[in-house]
C-alpha cells in the first residue's frame, strides 16, 4: 500500500528532477515553444514543496490536491493548469483514504489524465504531455519501472510528430524533429513514482 509519505516522496522526487532538468526542458522549449518550460515548472514545484512543508496534508489525495493547486497558481504558463488538473483530479479520485493500492493509484491517475485531455483537447499523437502520460498509465499495472519506461519512450516518440496543440502548433511542419518539452517533463513526473517507491526523494 502507498501512504502519505510515498506521495510526499513522489512530489519531492518530481521537484528534484525538475530542478535538475530545468535547463534541458527550457532548451527543448526554445525551438518550438517560448523557452520557459523549465523555469515555469521550477517555480511551480518549488511552490509545491513549500506548501507541502507548511500545510502537511495527511492523506495521499489531499497531498495531490494541494500540489495541483500550487501548480495552477504559480506556473504562469499552460503547463500550470494542465499539470494542476492532472494532480488535482488524481487526488480527488483517491478521496480521503489514508493509504491506497497501486491499482487505485493507476485508476486515479487515469482519471487525472482524462481531465487533462478534456481541458486541453489533446489526443495521443498531438505531440503533447499526453503522449507520455497515456502510455505510462497503460503500463502502470506492470509496476512503476514499466510506467517510467513507457513514459520515456512516449516522450522520445514525440520527436517525429507534428504539433497539433499549443504554441508549437503554429509552427506546423517545423515542429517536426523536436522532442516535446511537455511530454519530457511528464516522463520526469512519472519517473518520480519509481524513485518514491525506492524510498528516494524524501
Amino acid at each position, binding site marked *: 500500500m502507498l501512504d502519505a509519505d510515498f506521495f510526499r516522496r513522489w512530489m519531492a522526487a518530481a521537484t528534484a528532477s525538475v530542478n535538475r532538468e530545468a535547463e534541458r526542458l527550457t532548451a527543448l522549449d526554445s525551438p518550438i515553444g*517560448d523557452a*520557459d518550460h523549465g523555469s*515555469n515548472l521550477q517555480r511551480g514545484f518549488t511552490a509545491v514543496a513549500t506548501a507541502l512543508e507548511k500545510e502537511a496534508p495527511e492523506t495521499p489525495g489531499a497531498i495531490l490536491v494541494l500540489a495541483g493547486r500550487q501548480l*495552477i*497558481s504559480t506556473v*504562469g*504558463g*499552460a*503547463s*500550470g*493548469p*494542465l499539470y*494542476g*488538473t492532472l494532480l*488535482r483530479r488524481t487526488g480527488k479520485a483517491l478521496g480521503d483514504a489514508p493509504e491506497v493500492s497501486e491499482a487505485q493509484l493507476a485508476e486515479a491517475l487515469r482519471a487525472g489524465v482524462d481531465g487533462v485531455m478534456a*481541458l*486541453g483537447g489533446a489526443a495521443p499523437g498531438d505531440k503533447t504531455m499526453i503522449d507520455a502520460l497515456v502510455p505510462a498509465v497503460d503500463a502502470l499495472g506492470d509496476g512503476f519501472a514499466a510506467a517510467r519506461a513507457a513514459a520515456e519512450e512516449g516522450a522520445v516518440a514525440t520527436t517525429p510528430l507534428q504539433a497539433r496543440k*499549443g*504554441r508549437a502548433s503554429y509552427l506546423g511542419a517545423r515542429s517536426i524533429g523536436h522532442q516535446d518539452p511537455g511530454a519530457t517533463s511528464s516522463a520526469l513526473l512519472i519517473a518520480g513514482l519509481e524513485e518514491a517507491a525506492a524510498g528516494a526523494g524524501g
Partner: protein
Amino acid sequence: MSDEKVVGIVLVSHSAEVAASVAELAKGLAGGAPAVPVATAGGVEGGGLGTSAELICAAAASVDRGAGIAVLTDLGSAVLTVKTLIAEGDELPDGTRLVDAPFVEGAVAAVVTAAAGADLDAVEAAATEAYGYRKV
C-alpha cells in the same frame, strides 16, 4: 439600470499592457461604460508575460455584482487557466463564464452590451458574434 444588475467583464491576457489597453479601448467605445465593472488580469504577478490564477480570481471578485461575469481571454495558458478555475468550482464567483470570443472585438461587444443593461447570455452572445465580423 441598477448597479447590482450589471454583468462584470474580466479581460485576461498574457500581457498586462494588452489587457489594460483593451479595457481602455472597450470602455472608450461603449456609451454608458462607466456603469460596467471591467477588470484586467494581465501577465504574471510582479510583471512578465504569462497567466496568473491569483490575478484572475482577484479581478473576477472585483467585478462581481451578482449578475454574472463574462471572462474573455487571449490564448494558451490564459484559456486553460480560466477553464481550470471554473472547473474547480470554488475559485471564481458564481455565474462566472468563459466567453468564446476574439479578445479585442469581443471585449468591445461585451462592454457595449453590458452597458445597455443586458444579461450574461446576451453579453456572451454579442461577444461570440464578433467572430463573424469579416474584415476582408
